[in-house]
């Protein structure tokens, strides 16, 4: 998974709040530190793009995302 691995048709990351997701790391006790932060952020941004594609796809079918 890399930042190049973008879904078709996705243009931004408005479907997923990356900052809120990162904040969950502390709650869950997962390591968010100088060794992991950049990689996790990159992957979350990619996942956000895929989620946006899903949201747009669901909207097109008339069944909007949650």
């Amino acid at each position, binding site marked *: *998974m*890399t930042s*190049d*691995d973008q*879904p*078709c*048709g*996705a243009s931004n990351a408005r479907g*997923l709040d990356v900052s*809120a*997701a*990162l904040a*969950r*790391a502390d709650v*869950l*006790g*997962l*390591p*968010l530190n100088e*060794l*992991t932060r950049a*990689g*996790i952020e*990159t*992957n*979350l941004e990619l*996942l956000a793009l*895929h*989620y946006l*594609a*899903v*949201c747009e*796809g*669901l909207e097109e*079918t008339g*069944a909007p*995302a*949650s």
Partner: protein
Amino acid sequence: MSAVQAVRDALARIALLDGSIHAFTRVLAEAAIQAAERIDAGLACGKDMGPLAGVPFAVKDLFDVAGQVTSAGSVVRANSPPADTDAVAVRRLRAAGAILIGTLNMDEFAYGFVTQNQHFGTTLNPHDTARLSGGSSGGSAAAVAAGMVALTLGSDTNGSVRVPSSLCGVFGLRPTHGAIPLCGTFPFIDRLDTVGIFSRSIADLRTAFSVLADVPVEECSPVTRRVARLGGWFRSGADPEGLAEMDAAAKTLGGGELVDLSLAALGRSAGFLITAFEGGRRHQDTLRAQWRDFDPATRDRLIAGALLPDTLLRDAERAAALCVAELEAALEKYDLLMAPATPSPAPGIADGMIIMNGSAVPARANLGLYAQPISLAGVPVLTVPLARPGRLPFGIQLIAPRGREALLFDAADALVAAGAVAFSWPHLEEVPA
């Protein structure tokens, strides 16, 4: 040939080649010889030792093997206890007379399409050792392609049998989800994980599937076969030569209409999210305790997945259901669908890029584009190597309705008979036995 001789030949070939291929993570030479001696003794007494008597095989290092630690491609599990018993799939092959030779390399926890493993090395493509073997079952595909063993097991969650089959030029079956028991395999994504089989011939694949699924595999009638090619998403960016060869192959089956699955991109994104979400949750306890032991690339992907909110999974599941319904509708109209297994032949390791639509794009990110949307439906898919001697392998997916593996074998036999599909030996140091 005796079973002992078959095992000795396999061990010799592994010794000769695996130093440069890195397919194996463990070779169980002594136990294999002992098992072969038992097979030969039984045969000498006139006993039926099974349909795979004396056939050497190996398994991806996520199948439990009694007495061995199941690594799942990670040193995170180095201190785990050895498996008490064999995985069901291993047990069934052994009961049919096959002889386990060893375990095979993979992407860490099966999360990847390249088999570049920080702990166990990169499995190189036997057709060109400067190129990737694909993943995550890269060791399984490379070991068969190089002739080290006749049969291997892997697993396919999002394409991990189909991608390495395509790049290494072997036959690779992802059966109907659940057709082969997963019991005793290290899990990734339960709803998608599928035990897969690699071989150099359809006959071997058919026999192995029958043993592993514990079902007879009947022949199908070619007359009833309705064949179509998947268009749109499944042709965009694909290697033009490979596409032309696939189109020609479709004609030999008497089919070729193009069918567009308009929701394939949606399905790919849904599968991507479901995998990240469930993979992250599966590993989050281990990540808390042992995060330093993971391959950093795997670690960061899994943590990101663990941070996703629950609402996202529900939306991804709804999107996946739409994609599956579209594919199932196509499989009501056609018995067999065809699509490339990968966008291109094997990429170079040094640059890690493939060409799509005239542009270089990262291989790691794009190798699974055509495999992932199909995975969601749980239908059987057989990847077959197009006949292209002297060139890098390129595989195509044959896709059938659930439970119709026999139709796939029959179609593959027809493609082989027509000369459109064939296993080609790589140009290694030694002529195959």
